[in-house]
């Protein structure tokens, strides 16, 4: 049994290909199972195509959920990337 962590963020820009790529690359380095939810759809954070397929746009609320040994670090890292990478768009 490992703890599950969750944190939300309101996007300051659209989740274009490059921020989605940065998110998936970072997610892939964690052992935790990580998902991203926006607009009622959920994607595997490690799947760049899944993340891009969310079509998340500026102003939308997005939630990162992780469970596993490094879940807390994973959520913190991905929220930081989302905060930074969507500022200038992709």
């Amino acid at each position, binding site marked *: 049994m490992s703890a599950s962590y969750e944190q939300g963020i309101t996007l300051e820009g659209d989740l274009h*290909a*490059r921020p*989605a*790529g*940065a998110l*998936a*690359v*970072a*997610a*892939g*380095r964690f052992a935790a199972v990580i998902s991203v939810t926006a607009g009622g759809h959920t994607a595997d954070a*490690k*799947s*760049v*195509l*899944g993340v891009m*397929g969310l079509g998340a746009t500026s102003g939308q609320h997005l939630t990162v959920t992780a469970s596993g040994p490094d879940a807390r670090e994973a959520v913190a890292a991905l929220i930081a990337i989302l905060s930074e990478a969507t500022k200038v768009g992709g």
Partner: protein
Amino acid sequence: MSTPTVGIVLVSHSAELAAGAAHLASQVSGGTVTIIAAGGTDDGDLGTSAAKVADGLRHANQGAGVVVLPDLGSAVLTVKAVLEDYGEAATVLLADAPFVEGAVAATVTAAAGGDVKAVAAAAEEARHVRKL
């Protein structure tokens, strides 16, 4: 990072298509993965080149293996012919995947440190991801 990442070889009938897909995959994945575009014939026409594929395999292999993505039918034949003569076939996987989506998904997984099996699997999963 000092650990080598899996390299990617994109084999297309079109040099421009291979180069464009490589550029896109590199941009999306942050530019840390070696992606080799092996497109067109040796004369620059539409088609595939065994020599370009073989060169691509050598340049893409940084020590962690290579995943090869072909675009259309005869590109697969060219890659298979090259792999028959390639010395380290166990470290090279041919992915059955949509070309653009597979290239992007494979490169992102390679950038995250995935091994050849994980990178090839990411490419092949691209078949099942809906765009709409």
